[in-house]
């Protein structure tokens, strides 16, 4: 049964990040993508014992470095200086992506332009013909963990659903997203389609109408 939270408004970004953080299992190895996913780290409690991976070659990444902590040799995938936590380890790029590709991370958290109900992800390219293609680690991250969570607003500024039957933007990966955390709902994605775990500020029926999607109740 979907938990419908209609008594409140939709989630803000901070609340989305907190929800994601709460759903990360204790002791999990996690990669937080550049941008909004990075903010999940602020909501992880030390008790969770979550170990952060950064694809540029480190497990045990800590928070952003400040002042004298800043070391140009110690940065995250967004090229922001970070600190090292006890038990950290360094490895080269081939080993780091082997760790992702091999399915050893428990969770990756990513942003998205579009996600399909069966878990296809589009988050690297708007499809604009004059855009310079640049993928970075997006396609590796998309298939790089046991579970891939997407954080996004459910609708574009124009009100179009970013959860879709078929992505119209160029794909980053096929059938790779396990769950979407959005302002209006948390939605599980499987080859059988999208199942809504919870809504925020809208009912499930409203959500079905606004997205035009055949959403199941999970």
């Amino acid at each position, binding site marked *: 049964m979907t938990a419908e939270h209609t008594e409140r408004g939709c989630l803000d970004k901070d609340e989305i990040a907190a929800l994601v953080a709460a759903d990360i299992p204790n002791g999990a190895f996690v990669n937080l993508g550049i941008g909004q996913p990075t903010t999940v780290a602020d909501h992880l409690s030390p008790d969770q014992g979550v170990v952060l991976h950064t694809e540029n070659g*480190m497990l045990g990444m800590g928070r952003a470095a400040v002042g004298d902590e800043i070391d*140009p040799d110690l940065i995250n995938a967004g090229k922001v200086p970070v600190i090292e936590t006890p038990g950290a380890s360094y490895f*080269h790029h081939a080993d780091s992506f082997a760790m*992702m*590709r091999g399915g050893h991370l428990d969770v990756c958290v990513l942003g998205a332009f579009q996600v399909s109900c069966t878990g296809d992800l589009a988050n690297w390219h708007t499809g604009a013909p004059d*855009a*310079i*293609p640049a*993928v970075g680690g997006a*396609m590796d991250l998309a298939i790089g963990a046991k579970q891939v969570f997407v954080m996004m607003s459910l609708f574009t500024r124009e009100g179009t659903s970013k959860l879709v039957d078929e992505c119209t933007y160029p794909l980053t990966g096929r059938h790779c997203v396990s769950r979407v955390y959005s302002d209006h709902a948390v939605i599980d994605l499987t080859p059988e389609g999208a199942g809504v775990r919870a809504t925020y500020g809208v009912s499930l029926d409203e959500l079905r109408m606004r997205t035009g999607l055949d959403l199941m109740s999970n």
Partner: protein
Amino acid sequence: MTTAHLTDADAAVADIPDGATVLIGGFGTAGQPMELIDALHRHGAKDLTVVNNNAGNGDHGLAALLNTGNVRKILCSFPRQRDSWVFDGLYRSGKIELEVVPQGNLAERMRAAGAGIGAFFSPTGVGTPLAEGKEERTIDGRDYVLEYPIRGDFALVKAHRADRMGNLVYRKTARNFGPVMATAATTTLAQVSDVVETGELDPESIVTPSIYVDRVVHLPGVSELAREGAAG
């Protein structure tokens, strides 16, 4: 064969010929062999193919090499950045060829070159525009695309410390592509800020054995200065 030791970046790159494929280490500025790139720019080899994670930032280093038209083609994962205006201009005017490669495939393709692997099936990129035209195969129920090795004629990497023999250790996330590129090139140049006597590096902790290192370019103070600059 025996690793050469130099202190002159210009001498170190002097035999890189026109048309060479040059693997250049670094992720952002971490591990970027800035002085070797600048020397390559002064050297002036033309028609280069460059492999790097990015396609140059600002007006210096790799961007400068691009700007003077020395690079025919670049393989990278993320060319488009806030300050990649040099590349952007060349690309839009059709003056540089671009092959965008997912970052993990980029690393693994160089690893394959160094490891004598003829090709490998990667799950990364399946079903995306970057897999178009590539051989696909389903193995054990999972889809893969066939990826080929990327070999370099030269690799320019930055390590932290070398011994006289040419063994290397790196520093924190500046390790990134360096150890992989060192294995994938015919001739590997490593710029380091520190050289110690053979035997002073712990054999358990050497990341790049000397077999992969043809020239150590000792540029003391370089990485220390960078660190002070950033911290100050």
